[in-house]
């Protein structure tokens, strides 16, 4: 992976849990538990875990009550986010929110937590899965998902966009800037670098 030397790009670690937590909720962008993302000695059964099965047949499950050790699958990430908003709105002090998934998933979780009043210190993030990026076109504000190349055409305004390492947690996206703004048409070859 290239490094543009930009310091706003987030760094990630493993899920360590927090001994001071009253209850810990772990949301995972995938069907399985991220054993490889748990820090050494951390017991996954200490968490209430929500997963994404990507399957319409997943039956409903109670989401509003704390249940340490329970694993609750959701049909999609959107369905999980919707439930998370409701759950966090009712939570009290002492909850720790952990997330494992791709970068856009993690910061979507962060923003839901922030709206509910959780601080950054009450949340933990571990990155897994594809490195594809969500990007924000700074010229027309179109958000594009799953970007794997260094230069892409904006779906909103057609600009040839260079994906910078400058990251906004609020937008859960990297900044994308027209690469040939000074000399239109002067576009270097694109490289597949976010895999």
């Amino acid at each position, binding site marked *: 992976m290239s490094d543009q030397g930009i*310091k706003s790009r987030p760094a990630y670690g493993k899920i360590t849990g927090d001994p001071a937590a009253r209850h810990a909720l772990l949301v995972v962008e995938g069907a399985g538990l991220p054993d490889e993302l748990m820090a050494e000695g951390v017991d996954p059964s200490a968490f209430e875990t929500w997963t994404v099965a990507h399957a319409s047949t997943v039956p409903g499950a109670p989401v509003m009550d704390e249940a340490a050790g329970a694993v609750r699958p959701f049909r999609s990430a959107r369905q999980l986010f919707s439930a998370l908003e409701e759950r966090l709105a009712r939570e009290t002090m002492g909850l720790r929110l952990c997330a494992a998934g791709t970068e856009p998933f993690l910061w979507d979780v962060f923003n839901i937590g922030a709206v509910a009043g959780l601080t950054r210190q009450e949340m933990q993030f571990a990155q897994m899965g594809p490195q594809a990026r969500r990007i924000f076109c700074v010229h027309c504000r179109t958000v594009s998902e799953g970007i794997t190349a260094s230069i892409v055409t904006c779906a909103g305004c057609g600009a040839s966009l260079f994906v910078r390492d400058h990251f906004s*947690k609020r937008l859960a996206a990297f900044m994308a800037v027209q690469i040939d703004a000074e000399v239109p048409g002067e576009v270097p070859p694109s490289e597949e670098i976010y895999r």
Partner: protein
Amino acid sequence: MTVQFKPAETFRDTFTYKKSPEDILRFPFPFPEDEYMYSVNIEPHVKGGATPAFQAVFDIDEHYVGECRERERVLKEDPKRCQVLPHMMAAQWDTLELIMESLAADYPAHFTLSKAGDVWTWVNRPLGLHQTFTFGKPETLPCTPFEYITRQVQGDFTLQDQREDNLFVDGGMVTTQADWSLEFNIGMSFHEWHGPVPGVAHDRGVFDRALKYLLRLQYGQPVRRLNWTMTINPRLDTSPENYPVWGPDRTTVTADNVAEKVHLRVELQTLFRLPRSNAILFGIRCYLTSVSDIARVPKWRRRLHRVLRDLHPDLAEYKGMTRYRPLVVAHLAALDDGAPTSRGIAPDTDRLDG
């Protein structure tokens, strides 16, 4: 003060912006030495000092009316250039109070603030405004307090909330910026919004030290520093949003037009602790002076030549000067007689050459 405002001057398209001789001499030239590197060059924001731009809390000059009109135009095109997150309302009123009281004290001929309890009356003569409102009641103003007052001052402003031992840029009025986006950066922590600044600055620990310093900023003891870049044409709105509009300007510089086209862009950055919110108001006041106008001051033309000639390549790249820097250096080299220069930013003259 006998400043003559120039309401019709423009900062885009026709570019009718021009500086009077007095305005050239009051330019806050940013280089105290013949070489430049990032540093935490912060000093108390007190009246006096090397340039008349330091004589007021918020400096008003002959471009005041023209710049307020340009700001109004940018906001009509893109209202999100002014945004403040909802938890910052106390900081909005702090800002309004600080700016109104400072302008009225520094420029009584132009601005008057009178108070009857919480009912305040604000008069802005250059812009023809007369507003009575209740302090603390946003519905008594035509827009939010932060937007209302920052529409009436030159330069951009951001609001920093202080929490978690950090500063977060949780609001701003940003229409005259050197290539950074409020819409993208709003909500970021101190190190996040400085992320794109070259590694040389981070490696020198500049941001760690600056943050520590600012977290301890005291009410009533504002500080300032000068920052700089270069801009082609006297264009205030060099936002990333409009980069496709102004970016091509950088290819229009030639040996013949370099002195008129290329402008030194100086930011007088000021930082104020706000009393109720404990937030920090950050003022970013932009001054544009062409290479041709700078060259009329012997010390400044020598020094600008030496600084640009020896500039760290990463900084030149970050400041977007790569395409045209050699032309500026060549132009100024011919005007640099090699004589020594005095320390500090003062012009050391009260008359312009040429």
